[in-house]
C-alpha cells in the first residue's frame, strides 16, 4: 500500500499507468484546500490481471479530488478497480469518471463507494462509470455504492453499458471508412474524455492497446 498526502492548498496531478499484471493500492489523503487530479490507465494486455485499489479521505475542508480512469481489457484479461472515497470533512468535492472498453473474454469490475458521514455537509460527490462492450463473451460489472448520512449534499452516480453504435458505424462506412477504422474511431472517441490532456507517450500507449481490441 502506497500513501500519498496532498498537503494544504497544494494542487497535484498524477497519472498511474498499470500494465500487464501490475497491481497498485493507494491510500490518499487530501488536505484542506488541496486538489488532486489522478488518472488511472489500466492496460492488462491479453492475459494480465490488474487490481487497483484507491482510497481517498480528506483532512480539512475544501479539498478536491478528481479521479479519471480508463481500462482496456481484451483476451482473457481481468481488471478490478476499487475506489473508496470517504468525505469525512465538510465542503469537499470528489469527481469520478471511469470508462472501460471490454472485449473478447475479458472481465472487469468497477466498485465505487462514496461515503458521506453525518455532519459532512456541503459535500459534492459525483461518480460515473461507462462501459463499452465489444463481444458477447466479455463481462463488465459496475457496483456503485452511495452511503450518505449527511443532509445538504450533492451526490450522483451513473453506470452505463453499451455497444458501438450501428448508425455511427454505417454513417462512417458510407463515407468509405473501413469497418475496423470506423470501430477504432468510435472507441477513440469513447476513451477521449479520459485521455485528453495526458502526456503524449501515455496516450499513444493507450491507443496502441486500444487498437488490439478493434
Amino acid at each position: 500500500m502506497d500513501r500519498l498526502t496532498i498537503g494544504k492548498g497544494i494542487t497535484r496531478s498524477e497519472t498511474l499507468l498499470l500494465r500487464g499484471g501490475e497491481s497498485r493500492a493507494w491510500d490518499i489523503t487530501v488536505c484542506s484546500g488541496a486538489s488532486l487530479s489522478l488518472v488511472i490507465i489500466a492496460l492488462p494486455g491479453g492475459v494480465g490481471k490488474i487490481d487497483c485499489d484507491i482510497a481517498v479521505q480528506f483532512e480539512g475542508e475544501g479539498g478536491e479530488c478528481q479521479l479519471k480512469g480508463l481500462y482496456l481489457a481484451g483476451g482473457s484479461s481481468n481488471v478490478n478497480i476499487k475506489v473508496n472515497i470517504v468525505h469525512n470533512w465538510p465542503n469537499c468535492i470528489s469527481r469520478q469518471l471511469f470508462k472501460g472498453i471490454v472485449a473478447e473474454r475479458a472481465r472487469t469490475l468497477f466498485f465505487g463507494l462514496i461515503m458521506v458521514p453525518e455532519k459532512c455537509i456541503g459535500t459534492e460527490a459525483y461518480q460515473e462509470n461507462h462501459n463499452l462492450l465489444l463481444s458477447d463473451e466479455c463481462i463488465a460489472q459496475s457496483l456503485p455504492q452511495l452511503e450518505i448520512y449527511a443532509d445538504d449534499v450533492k451526490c450522483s452516480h451513473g453506470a452505463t453499458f453499451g455497444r458501438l453504435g450501428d448508425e455511427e458505424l454505417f454513417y462512417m462506412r458510407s463515407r468509405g471508412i473501413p469497418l475496423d477504422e470506423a470501430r477504432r474511431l468510435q472507441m477513440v472517441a469513447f476513451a477521449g474524455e479520459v485521455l485528453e490532456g495526458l502526456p503524449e507517450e501515455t496516450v499513444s500507449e493507450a491507443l496502441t492497446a486500444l487498437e488490439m481490441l478493434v
Partner: protein
Amino acid sequence: MIDILLEVKNLHANAGDREILRGINLSVGRGEVHAIMGPNGAGKSTLSGVLAGKPGYEITAGEVTFDGSPLLEMSPEERSWAGIFLGFQYPTEIPGVTNTMMLKSALAAHRKAKGLGELSGADFLKLVNSKLSLVGMDRSFLSRGVNVGFSGGEKKRNEVLQMAVLEPQLAILDETDSGLDVDALRIVGEGVNSLRTKENAFIVITHYQRLLSYIVPDVIHVLYNGRIILTGGRELALEIEAKGYDWIIRENG
C-alpha cells in the same frame, strides 16, 4: 447515347417481415439528375438505404449494377470507394469524432482504394478549405464533433461538404430538404449544383418540389407502395405540388 451509371432491375427488399420494395426498375445515366418523389411510407428511404448498403434490409430479388459492377455484393465502404454517396435525411451525430478526423480517414481510404498515397496534412487542409466555401461553412466546423450540436441546416451543409470532398459519381440525397429553411435550402442547392458534371449523377429523394426548383431534375419518378408508378419530366413536380399524389395513385397505383 446515354452512358448508364446505375441500373436497378426488379429490386425487391424486405425490412423485417415486410416487403418494402416490390420491383424497382431504374436507370440513371451519367450527367443526369433523377428525382424520386412519393408519399410517406412509399419506400423512398429504403431504396436509398439499400443502394448505400445500409444493414437491416434483405434483398429478396433483383439486381443492381453500378458502373458495370454488381453493387449489392459490395460492403458500404466499397460502394463509397466505387463512387456512391448517400446524403442522409438525418445525419448521424458522432460525439468525440471530429469532422476533420472523419474527412481525413474517409479521404485516405478513398485514395488507398485508388492506389494513391495519403495527402499531406497541408494538402488535406487546402482541399477541405476550398470546399468549405462551397457550403458557406467556416473552419471552426472542422474541429467539432461530427454533426454534434449542429442545426438542421448545418447538418445538411456538412453532408454537402463531405460530398464535395469525396467527389462521388452518384450522390443519393435522401430528403435533403427536410428541416431546412429557405436560406439553407438555397445554400445546399447551390452547393449541389456546383458539383454537377457531365460524368456524375444525382438521385434526389424528396417529398416536395421546393428542392427541385434549386436542383432541377431531368426525370421525376413517383414511388408508391414499393414501385415506381409514374415517370415524367420536371413539370410533374409542379403538378404534384398543386394536386398531391392521390390522382397519380388512382390512375397508376
